[in-house]
């Protein structure tokens, strides 16, 4: 069975600022990032939809020790965002000084911005868009 929404298509869309997801035609749940089946009920009966890119920060961390090759990015803040449609995404936050990021961020409303790009390294089979959020 053919994969409905591949990483490549999801990634290309995110690079243009569009967040794609999958809507289950059986239970109505939204799956993002994409999977073969609905993450809720396991159905293969899915359609591609565009998500709003709005949500709430559920948690965060400011990273001071990076993976090999990414040391220059430190310090940087990662956030988990609960999208309005349900799924959680992992991304970065703009407009917040990393070393000042605090529990005040939790629960704050955010909107997805134009994605930045992780250029990839020798292990990563190419580049990936990295979701970027800003406080609203």
């Amino acid at each position, binding site marked *: 069975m053919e994969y409905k929404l591949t990483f490549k298509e999801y990634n290309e869309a995110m690079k243009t600022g569009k967040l794609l997801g999958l809507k289950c035609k059986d239970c109505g749940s939204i799956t993002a*990032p994409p999977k073969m089946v609905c993450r809720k009920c396991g159905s293969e009966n899915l359609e591609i939809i565009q998500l709003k890119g709005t949500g709430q920060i559920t948690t965060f961390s*400011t*990273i*001071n020790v990076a993976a090999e090759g990414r040391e220059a990015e430190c310090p940087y803040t990662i956030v988990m965002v*609960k999208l309005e449609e349900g799924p959680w995404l*992992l991304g970065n936050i703009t407009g917040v000084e990393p070393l000042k990021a605090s*529990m005040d961020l939790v629960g704050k409303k955010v909107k997805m911005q134009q994605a930045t790009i*992780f250029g990839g390294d020798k292990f990563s*089979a190419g580049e*990936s868009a990295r979701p970027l959020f800003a406080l609203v």
Partner: protein
Amino acid sequence: MRKVAVVGVGETKFSGPQTKTGVELFAEAATDAMKDGNVKAKDVQALFVGNCLSDFAEGQGMVQAFAAENIGCFNVPANRYEGACASGSMAVRDAMMWVASGAYDIVLAGGVERAATLGTPLATRTFAMFSDARYEFPAGITFPGVFAMLAHLYAATYKIPIDKLREQMAAVSVQSCKYGAQNPKGQFFGKYGDLTVEKVLSSFMVASPLTLHDCCPFSDGAAAVVLASEDVAKKLTKKPVYILGAGQASSGPLISQYDHLPKIYARELASKQAYKQSGLSPKDINLVELHDCFSIASLIASESMGLFDYGKSGAAWQKGEAAIGGRVAINPSGGLKSKGHPIGATGAGQVYEVTKQLRGEAIPALQVPNAKTGMTDTLGGDGGTVVNMILQRGW
């Protein structure tokens, strides 16, 4: 299903970077386990080895086949298990299943890793491979970052002020280091025994809110156990330790687990399976070796295993309820934090520790009095794989 016993255990010292190859490390642990279990290499019918990163650490794949030949288990089926930090426990659980099924009577299982040899930058990169390469790593997730986010989420979920939670987490590291400093097999033997909450809080911030002393080290090391069917075990040892229950479950990437976080759902499932199979409940457990890769991980693990109420385990640690002599002794070995975390070997190392405790052969200062029943908990990645096992004294 037949009853399965641990008849022999062996373990190298867990350490920082060292010069023995992965095969050499495993061979030392394996031969010690076979001697301990009165088993000869020719009696071993299969070899199951947990190993994650030897490809990266020393350019060595298929370590399990070469280890089998190296220790004289010539031409036996040899399987490698990769489930991130739970690899060693996957190997032990599978060995248990094969012996229980009747296919084999004696299986050698364990694991080996040279994670310290990788060095911090490459180790941080390769450990991040246990997050989603496409949907998590690009944003810059690291392993401490996963548990740092879980710590903030835990604070928000249970409405614990972050400064209070940080003190509770520090109490976990202090207890682990106090015990681990007395464990000669441990990486921090003789070190950090006098760690204090203040020192944990003021050490280098790795990923907010986790400081260096909230994190376990990268480690080299190997551990191995010999499993045998009940009838064979009784001929080999007077002190068989039975694996009465084992559970294993999987999950998708961290961002897919949002229905349950900060709980790790795979652990809720795996521990329930282990309790059900054993017919035991959390109150029956005297000691636990659980997966404290980070201080917050101990709190999350102990709650899902039913040892403490959700949101209450930090206070339990502070009150000494997780100490030797407390309600349930947690990580008397020093745990991953102080004993060390050679990821492919860690789970087998936990079985080593629990077996020694149940036999009454632990380091005297770390021996849990009258330990009859123990449990292990091994977490792979951020919950992608979890294995729980319940072991009991068989005499």
